[in-house]
């Protein structure tokens, strides 16, 4: 009995490959050629992707180089942006991008975790399908729709009243200091949160669903309540996936152009208060590219380079984080 079992569990591929290679060591024919052809194609596509990436980096950096040269480090440390005077400090845009993205994550991540946990762990079967599909559908809505909806519906009904409220009652805290504006870091952050919540939710849901049933059962069998099962068995397994999903959402938030351009207020300034208008990197590129000339264009491309660098840095940080999680 024991013997029989251990034989059965021996890798079956061994015998399969054994018979295949018996006698004929070199396999010829279409299959083999297709194999090498595919290998070449795969390698070529890999090189192509790297090539395009490299080309993009080199050409954009090249275009922006004169401005980098003339502005020096003040390109990213100064917030004086005056194209007519040839002054190109982009700190206000960097600040706006970072602040709106952080606001978006602070709202979207807890919300997404809640929704995805509800969908995977709590919701009755009847709700699971429709709600899940609605979430996936929301993830596919173009951002300009979010932007317009934000301006015409969310701004008067939610953003402006909430900004007013925050400034009025919590204005003593610097980040809520008035005079309040609906078009603000907060407004852009909220619309970003609404945009990235479906993506993060959808990904987290998949992550939670891949947590092995064995883990849950182990916890249940020890007398864990549902919440303890989630805390101890589901979330630890899903940590890396949650970070990954968050990073994807963050990536979208950092680069989001049109919805932010519509809601951030387009003011070249750095304000500690989130209910004040600001600007973001992608938004300024989109807004000013049409009428820009000469160094102004180069500066806008330079902003693109900085945004690209910022995205890469954040991505690498996320990878390091995921790597650390996977090790423990």
């Amino acid at each position: 009995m024991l013997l029989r079992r251990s034989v059965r569990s021996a890798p079956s591929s061994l015998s399969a490959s054994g018979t295949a290679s018996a006698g004929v060591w070199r396999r010829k024919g279409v299959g083999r050629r297709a194999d090498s052809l595919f290998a070449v194609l795969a390698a070529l596509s890999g090189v192509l992707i790297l090539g395009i990436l490299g080309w993009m980096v080199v050409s954009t950096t090249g275009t922006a180089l004169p401005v980098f040269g003339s502005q020096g480090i003040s390109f990213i440390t100064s917030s004086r942006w005056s194209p007519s005077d040839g002054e190109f400090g982009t700190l206000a845009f960097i600040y706006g991008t970072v602040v709106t993205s952080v606001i978006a994550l602070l709202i979207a991540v807890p919300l997404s975790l809640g929704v995805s946990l509800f969908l995977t762990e709590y919701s009755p079967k009847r709700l699971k399908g429709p709600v899940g599909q609605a979430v996936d559908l929301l993830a596919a809505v173009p951002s300009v729709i979010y932007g317009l909806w934000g301006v015409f519906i969310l701004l008067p009904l939610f953003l402006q009243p909430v900004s007013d409220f925050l400034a009025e009652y919590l204005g003593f805290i610097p980040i809520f200091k008035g005079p309040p504006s609906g078009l603000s870091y907060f407004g852009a952050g909220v619309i970003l949160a609404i945009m990235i919540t479906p993506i993060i939710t959808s990904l987290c849901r998949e992550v939670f669903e891949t947590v092995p049933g064995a883990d849950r059962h182990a916890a249940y069998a020890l007398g864990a309540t549902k919440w303890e099962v989630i805390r101890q068995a589901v979330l630890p397994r899903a940590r890396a996936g949650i970070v990954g999903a968050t990073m994807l959402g963050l990536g979208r938030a950092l680069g989001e152009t049109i919805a932010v351009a519509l809601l951030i207020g387009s003011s070249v300034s750095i304000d500690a208060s989130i209910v004040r208008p600001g600007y973001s990197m992608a938004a300024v590129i989109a807004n000013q590219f049409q009428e820009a000339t000469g160094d102004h264009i180069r500066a806008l491309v330079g902003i693109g380079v900085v945004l690209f660098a910022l995205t890469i840095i954040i991505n690498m940080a996320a990878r390091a984080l995921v790597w650390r999680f996977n090790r423990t």
Partner: protein
Amino acid sequence: MSEKSPMVQEEGVDMPSPAAVVSRDDAQSRRPPVEQPVFSVRDLSVSYGKNVALKGVTMDIRPRRITAIIGPSGCGKSTLIRCFNRMNELIPGAQVDGQVLYHGEDIYAPGVDPVVVRRHVGMVFQRPNPFPKSIYDNIAFGAKINGYKGDMDELVERSLRRAALWDEVKAKLKKSALDLSGGQQQRLCIARAIAVEPDVILMDEPASALDPIATVRIEDLMQELKRDYSIIIVTHNMQQAARVSDETAFLYTEVDEATSARWGILVEFGKTGRIFTSPRDKRTEDYVSGRFG
């Protein structure tokens, strides 16, 4: 079943039994003077959706024994063992009818919290399933959620010793449990189960994913554990059932020719020695002699 015998208390002393068939394991077990069953199963049926998986099981599980559940694949062994700690509830559509009395109390009665049931009745699964945490945290998990206030280090050591794993892992308690071998992982799962101080331990084919040596270690461990715990084990392996258990339940699949519906029934239940040497039912005899299954 043999009578209670208050005279015989010492370990290792065989008890004269009118049933004449006394298994090797019976000789080693200690008999408490008065013995109430840990579990009394009364007319238990389980169905998944419309399909009945198990019908009309009635049996008493005796304390501090190893009770084996054997039978061909699909006859409902896992279904039955999951009834003892209400794990069937986690399967959508599962429906349990009948009674499972734990020390006389119906664990399926309204108002009984399955979480509390599971704190008394631990379970070890077919595939070792340690959490992706350190060895230490795996043991500490159950104790923590059960509100254990004592010395955690001491509990971890005690549990690991009981599971015969301490010497192998004492130097790497903070290492991931997933780095252990399959057999070590399974013993860790046993340690994890006993760390919450259950009364009963359920094991669903605990050794079927393990090699023969790891299997023997688990079997030895079960012999150790039955001094303090009642153990119910599902096994495919009849030699294993014969080696380790005191009592054996044989389940078999009944088929309704008209509808070709299939469900499991309890064919025979009794002392392991008797089930294997002089089964009363033809189907049991065929099964234990390897004629089918």
